[in-house]
């Protein structure tokens, strides 16, 4: 009886009792969700255009952030390091397309998925070899990112908003809008959508698949860089961030593998859901439920919509 009370009544009493705490928790979940959504966005870009479930997105994020910080440590000014990192991501996209994707065209999905695992291992080794395995601090000030916090006096208490979190939300918003415009309005964007729709048909109207793949992997690399900077500013830049990237997977399937708005909405649901769950329901189970709650939330949604919230309906024919 008391367990039922603890699960179904008590958390809500707590929420109503301290609305400022609730607002703080929701805000933290929101920011976490935005960052999950950014990682998921990188996945969606590549999945849409090449049908590859790119497991390496997480390590690409770490690798980009490491390159940026590592170059700056070696004495390169921040702006030049940023440009150089973008260059590195372009070279990476070229290399992946030429060495990994092109020989594996038309292979089953699971083979391509595994190939991105190989890429992950390779990048982990390369990143540690070049920049060392120790956590690094993100160069926040040199990139003109704000720090500090704003304290809002609302709801009978104080809600503290980190400025970097606000910046993260704005950057994420700009990026999603930018990518949306890019997909809808530009020539390459149309070509990308054509490729996503049907590889063969796209080829037959003269779209170069190889070129498109370089473009999407480069775009995913830029998204990875932005995500890496923002995650890096909240915690340190280290290989542990790669595990955080796994959280993007439930976000991804919750939203639907092919949908950009899905990635955003999924990110917010997972982010807020997991923070609320950890804060209000976590103590009942002994804490730490954050590590699996996201997956269970996603699973619960999937049981009702197997293709995710915004995914294309799966039509099966014999």
């Amino acid at each position: 009886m008391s367990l039922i009370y603890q699960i179904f009544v008590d958390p809500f009493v707590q929420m109503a009792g301290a609305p400022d705490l609730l607002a703080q928790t929701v805000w933290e979940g929101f920011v976490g969700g935005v960052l999950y959504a950014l990682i998921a966005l990188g996945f969606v870009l590549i999945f849409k255009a090449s049908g590859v479930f790119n497991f390496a997105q997480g390590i690409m994020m770490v690798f980009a952030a490491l390159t940026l910080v590592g170059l700056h440590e070696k004495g390169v000014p921040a702006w030049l390091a940023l440009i150089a990192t973008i260059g590195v991501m372009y070279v990476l996209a070229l290399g992946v397309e030429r060495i990994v994707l092109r020989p594996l065209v038309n292979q089953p999905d699971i083979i391509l998925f595994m190939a991105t695992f190989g890429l992950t291992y390779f990048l982990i080794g390369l990143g540690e070899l070049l920049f060392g395995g120790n956590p690094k601090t993100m160069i926040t000030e040199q990139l003109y990112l704000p720090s500090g916090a704003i304290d809002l006096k609302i709801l009978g208490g104080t809600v503290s908003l980190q400025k970097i979190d606000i910046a993260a939300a704005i950057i994420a918003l700009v990026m999603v809008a930018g990518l949306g415009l890019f997909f809808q309005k530009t020539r390459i964007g149309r070509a990308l959508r054509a490729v996503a729709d049907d590889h063969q048909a796209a080829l037959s109207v003269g779209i170069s698949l190889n070129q498109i793949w370089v473009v999407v992997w480069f775009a995913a690399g830029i998204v990875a860089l932005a995500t890496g900077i923002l995650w890096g500013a909240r915690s340190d830049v280290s290989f542990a961030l790669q595990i955080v990237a796994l959280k993007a997977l439930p976000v991804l399937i919750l939203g639907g593998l092919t949908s950009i708005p899905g990635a955003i909405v999924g990110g917010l649901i997972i982010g807020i859901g997991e923070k609320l769950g950890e804060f209000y329901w976590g103590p009942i189970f002994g804490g730490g439920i954050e590590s699996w709650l996201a997956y269970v939330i996603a699973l619960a949604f999937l049981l009702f919509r197997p293709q995710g919230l915004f995914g294309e309906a799966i039509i099966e024919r014999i």
Partner: protein
Amino acid sequence: MFYREAGQFKTSYAADMAIFPIRQDRIGLGLILIGAFVVIPLAGNQFLLNSIMIPFLVFSLAAIGLNILTGYTGLLSLGSAAFMGVGAYACYKLSTFFPQVNILVWIVASGFVSSAVGVFFGLPSLRIKGFYLAVATLAAQFFLQWCFARVPWLYNDNTSGAIEVSTHTLFGLPVTGPNATPATRYLVVLTIVAAMAWLASNIVHGRIGRMWMAVRDMDIAAQLMGIRLLRAKLLAFAVSSFYVGVAGALMVFLWLGAAEPEAFNINLSFLLLFMVIIGGLGSIVGAFLGAALIHILPILLRALPALVGLNLGSATIEQLTFMVTGALIIFFLIVEPLGLARLWRIGKQKLRVWPFPY
């Protein structure tokens, strides 16, 4: 030359469908078994037995289990490490409750516990497919790992949070715990793995295996042909988790001797999936080949710089190992996406018609 089947006539359907229809295959298998059971324990040193052969066999068993699920039934799973953990913890709990019962009984029983948990987490597979299912199995991975760390009952309230294996004997010889010799443990593991591989090979060649393969190739078509999807998929989850669970129990009881929850983390799941895919989806031989490659390759790579006289720091070697492993995985996938088992088959075919090209 010597590998030729001329003169071997098959007079019955059973002979035609035998797993090893060619006499040379049977002789070869016999030689391998003699080598594994007699030569290696006699000739091998502690390092070979402890760090190469026992882990190789344990991983092979787990890879067979995952192969049943992913290779034969087409259900992608990223939670296999957690099921190894279920096997290990179940065996630990059972053997501390009833320490006087033969440990082999508990190793098999822990497989059944793992099987039950596997069926539970396999339920969503009926509605969710492909990568969506893979992420759903991640729920099992993270939830179970959380349980191993947070439920004190599972590790008997040890202050270290780890499970430790006490000594159990079999026919008067210690087989687990610190007193067991590597050769004894190796022989026990080898016996179990050989028996279970034989069993798996029979399952996948029979009615159940064909049912699974029909589900893999197209589940709706299989359903139309009268295969009950729910039963087929859950059976695959049950059998697969059984194998993986036994492998987990073997890993802790006969290889490591103690384990923390971290031993069953997501990286182990990925490693097992690598073994299955590099070895060849839908092949029992492939599971062994894949496990050998993925387990032994990094050991070789670490030893290589010292052998050729290069003096690199251990951290650098570790990083280079990562890079080379990653590159080799991509290389293998490009050269032979169907895995080492396919190369094995091609090699055998070439040998059969030698010296003619076909």
